[in-house]
């Protein structure tokens, strides 16, 4: 079987501490929000977030509000042409950007 990886275009509006930043990027099929955040940082976006820990909605380290809903960024898959509003977990003290304080 031949797998063809189509490039897709997505927009991420990220609620950073102090400002909302909008990023448009090209990703492959089956890219997760968490991976996209990593790509943005590689390109110099300086977004503070918890990088991948377990990777399958198991450890809850990547919980964030995506389009209004609390989601696991590690398995939230990006769809072509879509815009994603990304904000930190509600009702938690924000340390920085998408990182909140837990106990």
């Amino acid at each position, binding site marked *: 079987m031949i797998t063809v990886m189509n490039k897709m275009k997505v927009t991420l509006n990220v609620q950073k501490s102090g400002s909302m930043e909008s990023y448009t990027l090209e990703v492959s099929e089956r890219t997760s929000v968490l991976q996209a955040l990593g790509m943005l940082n590689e390109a110099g976006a300086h977004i503070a977030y918890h990088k991948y*820990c377990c*990777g*399958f909605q198991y*450890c809850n380290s990547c919980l964030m509000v995506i389009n209004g809903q609390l989601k696991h960024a590690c398995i939230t898959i990006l769809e072509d042409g879509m815009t994603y509003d990304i904000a930190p977990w509600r009702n938690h003290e924000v*340390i920085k950007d998408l990182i909140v304080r837990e106990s």
Partner: protein
Amino acid sequence: MIREKTDVLVIGCGGAGCRAALAAGENGTKVLLVGRNVIGKSGLTPMANGGYQTVWQEGDSLQIWGEDICHIGCELNDPALVDVLTENGAACLDELASWGADVRIKRDWDKGKTDPAQRFDRTASIPGKIMLSTMKKRIAALPNVRCRYYTVISKLLVSDGKVCGAVGLDLPSGETLVIQASAVILAAGGMGAMYECNADEPQGVGGDATGSGIALALDAGARAIDLEMIQFATVPHEPALVMGVRYVPPKSGDYVVNADGVRFATKGQGPYSNILAREIIAEYEAGRGPVRLLPDELPYQPPIHPAQVKRALTIAQLGVAPKQIPLEVTVGPLYSMGGVEIHKNCSTTLSGLFAAGEVAGGMQGAQRSAGTSLTEIIVFGKHSGESAAAYAAHAAPCRVNEACIAAEDERLHAFLGETGDAASTVGDLRKRLAEIMTKYVGVNRNGQDLLRAKNELDELRKRYRGLHVGTDVVYNLAWIEAVELGHMLASAEAIVLSAYTRQESRGAHYRSDFPERDDANWLKHVVIEKRGGELCASTREICRGDNCHE
């Protein structure tokens, strides 16, 4: 600068660190447990599927189990440490169960052992996540054990030949943190993040296994053994988002094909086989990649634990289960058998320093036995905690070296500064490190390549010295990664020296210029330590008998 004081400092809050903190704090000793993120959300334990070996099948015994571990470890295992594991594994599991952890034993399913090299099935199941949540509750109930999250340790403090604390970064404030402690337990985990395609980060967006513990220990003056022993195993490669699919059928070698559809692997090889790892790499190198698992032929492996059922369901819903798609596999680092040299009470060669879990070396020998890592982190975590608390109770007060603290504070803050347009980023340097390690210090090694690796690491270290991470101090990921990269470079240098020193092939360490196992000359540990600021290699006989661990 933030200053804190404790009796026992535990570095790392994965399974080993949590168990160590509990054991150390049981009798009222003041314990500080530090980690990058809260318990259950950092390190590699949260993703552990849950194989915890103990002896339960009829006909099996602690002795047979120990023999299996040493046989798989190519007899490089320290027998005294293997005894600690086998003798305490079951009691430690019962303890977890008595604290409320849901433990399952797969008595009813005997279709195949996790690893064909083991003579009996010994799998009990307790997912890492459940281990951690169970221990987290108990830690919360002990007022003398405090957790300090969002912390990265960068250096151990040594005075008069004794460890007496550590320096690091408090991430939310960006301030330098100094912790004075009578005893320090390293439970900082493995070092897979310095390779490409590592099993610690199947999504490829970062990893906690940075080898910090090895670097901290060597820098402080402790010794490390057999660092060349890094287990490479089949890991999913494509398509993207196959995380959690660390699917490893007992006889993985029987289900892999190359791009021509040819079954190239030696029959019967287990998922953690170094022979299979080399065969897969050989297919890629000969241009016959990608290597795939055959989805239609894979045996059904029923999950044992309810938490594993949920995990399997998640993967199936994403449509990336191995039986749903042809999964491309490659080889990545899974586990470091080598590590900080420990005695059977988990003390190291440096007074006041203890080590437990993957960061420690000697128990697994030259190849890890499948299903023993979770047993290892709990058994040795507990031992290290008890030993460190006992040591701390009698340790003479030690004064932290203020000059050393000031120097480390300055070093940490020297990273802060604007990055020039043309300058390398920390991401660039990490990528380069992974390239060097994968190309020259991966599954196949030889003397020439290892010398190349050393030279290229020297070059990389020069680039590292000029690294800047911007001026933001609050939770600056680039800053954290830069500090970690220093540890990764130091550990990498030690691995290369250790691999260069061992002129034979044994277990996970394959040298094409010395392709045979050579028991006459190399049935011994390669020891790495720092002398006069330089890394040195020597060898040590394997401890056999009672006296060498006293």
